[in-house]
C-alpha cells in the first residue's frame, strides 16, 4: 500500500475505563459504533492519514486500556507521544475526578511538551450528564489543555478532536516549539512517499572477551 505523508505523530488516547476511548478511535478510523464494547485489553492500535493545513500527516494512535490493572502495560506506550486525547465520561463524575492523575502520568511518562486535548465523551447522553461543560472547560483552562465534548456514538466532534490536537502539534513544529528531530518527540518525518524504515543493523553477536565457552 503506498501511502505518503509528511509527518507522523504518535498519539495516545488515555483516560479511565469505560469512557469510550476505543469507540472514539474506532469512530475516527471509520469503524462502526458498537453499543456494548468490551474493555480494551492492554493496548490497541489504529492509524489514519489526515490532512492538516495541506500537510498529510499520519496519526499513529495508541488506544490504551483504562483499567487500573493494565496501567503497567500501557505505560510503556506513553513514551514519546506527541499528542494525547485525555478522555472522561460526561456521565461519570469518577472518570472526571481521575483526570488529574491521568494528566500527571501523561506529562511525566510521555513528555512535558505533549499536546493534550481534554475530551468529554458521551455528550449524546445529555440526560445522565454529571459533569458540566463549564467546569470541565475550567479544568482544561487551568491545566492548559484544549477541550471538546464529543460523542463517539453520533460521531460528533470526534474527527475534530484528533484534528485539533494535530493542528496544534503542527503549529508548534512550525513555530519551533517542538523539534521533530529530538528523540522521543513522537514526531517523525515521512518521506512524502512510501518509506521503508531501513532495517536496523542487527547487532552482531560479539563473543565476549569472557573466556569461557558455554
Amino acid at each position, binding site marked *: 500500500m503506498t501511502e505518503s505523508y509528511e509527518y507522523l505523530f504518535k498519539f495516545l488516547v488515555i483516560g479511565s475505563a469505560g469512557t469510550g476511548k476505543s469507540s472514539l478511535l474506532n469512530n475516527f478510523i471509520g469503524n462502526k459504533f458498537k453499543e456494548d464494547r468490551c474493555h480494551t485489553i492492554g493496548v490497541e492500535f489504529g492509524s489514519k492519514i489526515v490532512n492538516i493545513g495541506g500537510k498529510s500527516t499520519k496519526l499513529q494512535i495508541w488506544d490504551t486500556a483504562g483499567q487500573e490493572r493494565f496501567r503497567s502495560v500501557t505505560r510503556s*506506550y506513553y513514551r514519546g507521544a506527541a499528542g494525547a486525547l485525555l478522555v472522561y465520561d460526561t456521565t461519570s463524575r469518577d472518570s472526571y475526578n481521575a483526570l488529574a492523575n491521568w494528566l500527571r502520568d501523561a506529562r511525566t511518562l510521555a513528555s512535558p511538551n505533549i499536546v493534550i486535548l481534554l475530551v468529554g465523551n458521551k455528550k449524546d447522553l445529555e440526560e445522565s450528564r454529571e459533569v458540566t461543560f463549564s467546569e470541565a472547560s475550567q479544568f482544561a483552562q487551568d491545566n492548559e489543555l484544549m477541550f471538546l465534548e464529543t460523542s463517539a456514538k453520533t460521531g460528533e466532534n470526534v474527527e475534530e478532536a484528533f484534528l485539533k490536537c494535530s493542528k496544534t502539534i503542527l503549529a508548534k513544529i512550525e513555530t519551533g516549539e517542538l523539534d521533530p528531530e529530538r528523540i522521543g518527540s513522537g514526531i517523525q518525518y515521512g518521506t512524502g512517499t512510501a518509506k521503508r524504515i531501513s532495517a536496523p543493523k542487527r547487532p552482531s553477536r560479539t563473543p565476549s572477551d569472557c573466556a*569461557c565457552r*558455554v
Partner: protein
Amino acid sequence: MDSRHAPPGVNSRSLTAAQSAAELEVLKQIENVYFSPPNEFDAARYALNHVPSYTNTDDIEQMFTKLKRQQQVVSGKALHLISQQRDNCDKEFAEIQNIRQQLTTTLNTCRQARENLQIASNHLTISTFVILANVRKKQIIKSVLKSLDLLRSLRSVEKDVAELLNKKEYYSAIELILKSLKAASNHKEYTCIADLTSRLEDTLDMTEEKLDSVLSSICYSFDASVFSQLKRAYDLLGKTQAAMEQLHMHYSSAVNESAFEAVKSFVDNVSMETKFQEMCQSVPTNKAPTCLLNLCEKLFLVMRSYYILVNWYNKNEASSNSGNVCDIERNVSREYIKQKLKGGLIRIWHDVQSKVSMFLKSSGLEEYPFEKFIQMLGILRKLTQVAEVFCGDTSDLLQDFIKTQSVAYIKNYHKGRMEELKLFLENEGWEQCPVKSTFTVLHLQEFKQFKKYFKPKTDIGKSSQSSSSVHSLDDSVYIAKYFGQTTRTPFEIFRNENVTNDDIFGLEPESDVSEESDDEPDELKRDFVEDAEVKESPSKVSNSVIVTNTTLSVLRNCGQYLQISRYLPQIALEVIMLMNQLFDYYFFTVHLFFTSDLEVASSTLYTPKLNGVLKRISTLEDNFAIPKLPENLEKTEANLHGLSERIVGVESLIFLAKQFETLHPYLETIVAQHQRMILEHFRDNTLRVVGDLRMPAYMCSASKAVDARSALIGISQVRWDVKTVAGEHSPYVDMIVRKIQVFALRLENISQKVTLNIDIVNGIWGMVAKFIVHLLVEGFSNASKCSNGGRGLMQLDYRQLFVKLEKISGLKPIPYQDYVDRYVKAYYLPRDELEVFVRDRTEYSNKHLITLVGCACENKRDRQALLGVLEGREGS
C-alpha cells in the same frame, strides 16, 4: 265398293224380280268396255267401230234397240242405286256438319287460351327481369361497399395496430397487419390501394421494430404473458428463429447496458463514450462495495429474466410439441432454439462474469478495509451460487479470480498487519499483561465463532465438514427461489446494515447463546486481574500465563485471519501460512531483542532445531522491516539485565506457540488433506521448538549472575598442587555462592512483577548452573599443575557449590554438573581410557584437554601421544 262395281241397277226397288232378272241379263250383256271412264273410252266410237261391215238397217236397228235397251237398263239401274244411297248420304252429311261445328268451338277455346297464356306470360317475364336487375345492382353496390369498408379499415390499420400494441396484443396486431396486407394485395385494382400497401409495409416494419423493443425489454424483466404474445406474433410472422437470435443479442447488450448503468451512478462525468473499464477504475474505493452490489443485482435481473425465459420455453414448447408431428421444419427450428437457449445460459453467465471480473480488476480490491472486503467476497460468493443455479457452472473463472484476488488482498492486508506488529513490538514494554491463569486464545472475542470447534473434540471434523456440503445444497434451493417471479434478489441481504458476515456467507450461526454467554465474559467482563491475588512463590506456581500486549494483538490478528479463511476456504492454507508468519516475526523479534546481548560464545545453547527455525525465519528480513531494538529497556545488575523483560518475551512466545498449537486441530480441518503435513511441520519444527529459546535468552542474564573474571581469578588463586586433600572448600566457592544468593534475591523481586512458573525458574537456574559448570571447567583448566589432592579439592569445591546451588535454586540435581564432574574425574582415567576421552569428548576445548593431559600423564611419551591425538582431533 264392290257394289259400285257391280252392274248398275241391281238394287232397284221398283223393279220386279223378272224385270230385275231381265235387266240383270241386259247388264250382263254389256261389255265391260263400257264401264271404262269416259275420258279413256269413247262409247260412240266404240259402237261404231263394232258395227259389222255388211251393215243393213235392221241390224242397225237391232243394234240400236239393243243399245237403247242397255242404256235404259243402265240408267234405270243407276237411278235405282242413287236413290238407294241417298239416306246414307244425308246421314253422313249431318255428321259432317256436326263435326264441323265442334271444330269451330275448339278453335275458339284454343284461341282464347292462347290469348290468356300470352297475357300471363307477358306479365311474368317483365317483373323477373326487374328483380334480377335490382339484385344485381345490389350485389355490385355491396361489393363496392365492401371495398370501401376495406379501404376504410385499411386506412385505420395504423391506428388500430398502435392501439393493439398498447394493449400488448402483439399477436392481434401482427395478424391485423398481415390480413390487411393480404387484403390490399387482393385489391390492387384500386389505385389508392397501392399507396396504402406501401404504408402498410411501413406499419409492419414499425410494428416489428416495436416488437423488437418489447423483446429487448424482456431482458430486464421477463413477463410470460408478454412473451407468449410476442412469440405468437413472431410465429405468425414466421420469424421465430430470427427473433430468438435477436433476443440473444438483446440479452448480450442488456448485460452490457446493465453493467454500465450500475456503475455509472457511482462515477462523475460519464459520457456515452466512456469505456466500462475506465468507469470501473474511477469508482471511488469507499463506494466500490455498493457499486459491486448494484452491478451484481442488475446483472442478476438479466440472468433471472433469461432463466425464466428458458424455463418458459421448455415448458411451453414441450407441451406444444406433441401437437404437430408432421411439421418437421418447425420441430427442427424448435430444437435449434432450445439448444440456443441452453447455450445462452453459459454465454450470459460468461458475459456477467467478465463484467464483474473487469470491475474487480480495476477497482483496486486490495485497498479495501477488511469489513468491506469481506462484504465484497460475500457478494461474489452469492454470485457464484447464483451461477450454479443459473447454468450449473461452478464458475471457475470467478472462483479463480476470487482466489487470486483474495490472496492478493490477504497478502496486502498481512503486510499492514506486519507493519503494525513491528510497531507493537517496538513499543512493547514487555510487561506481563494481567490475564487469568486459565486464559487461552479462545477467550478472545475474535475467536468467539471458533469456540465450538474446540469443545467436544469428536465434533470438530463432523460439524465442519458436513456443514459445508449441507450448505451448498441449501443455498441452491434458497437461491433458486430468487429465480422465480419475484422482485427480490439474493443480494438484498447486503443492503441490510446489521447483516453479519456469517449471514453473508450463509455459515452456521454461532452456537448456543446461553453457552456463549457463560464463557465469554471471562476475560472481557469479569475481572481476571491478579492484582489482588497474593503472589505465590515461584516454585509453587505451576501454571501461569505470561502474555504481552503484542501477544494478544497477534492472537487477535489470528482471529481475523481465521475469519477470513472461513470465508475463503480455498485459500485457507495461504491464510494460515501468513498467520504463521506473524508468529515467526514475533519469534524473530523476541530472539533478536533478548539474545543479542548474549555474551557467551555458545554452541550448546542453541539446539539444532532452534538453529533450524532461526535460519528459516531469518528470511523474514528479506521482506519485512525488522523492528528496532528497544531503547528503553533498562539492563542493570539490579534487574538482572532485563531478565524480567526477557522472561516476558520468551514466555509470551511460548504461550503464543501453545495457542497456535491449540488452534492446530481446527486448522487441520480447514485445509486439504495433503496440506496438513505443512501444518504438522510447522508445529513440530517451530511451535514446539520455542521452548529452546529459553536457554540463550536466559543465559544472557544467567551469565552475568557470577562475575566470570573475578571467579576465574578466585580459582586461579587456589593451589591445586597440594599434597593432601583439604578439609575446606576454596574461598571462590563462597564468592560464587554469594553471587548466586544475590541473583536469587533479585529473581524473587522479578517474581513480584511476573508470575514465574517452575519451568521458568528451572530454566533460569539451569542456565546459571550451566554457566557455573563451564566457568569451573574453564577455571580448572587454567591450573596447569594439579595434584591428586588438587583434584580432590576441585571435587570438594564443586560439590559444595552444587549443594548450595541446589538449596538456593530448588533444582535437584543440578543439571550440567556432569560437565565439570567428568572433566575433573578424567584425571583418574588410565591412559587408554584417557585417550578415548580426549578423542571423543568434543564438548571440551583443546585448551581444556591439553591441561588435562598435562596434569594426568606423568609419562612424557604418553603425554606426547595424547597431545598428538588432540591435534588429530583438531584436524578432523
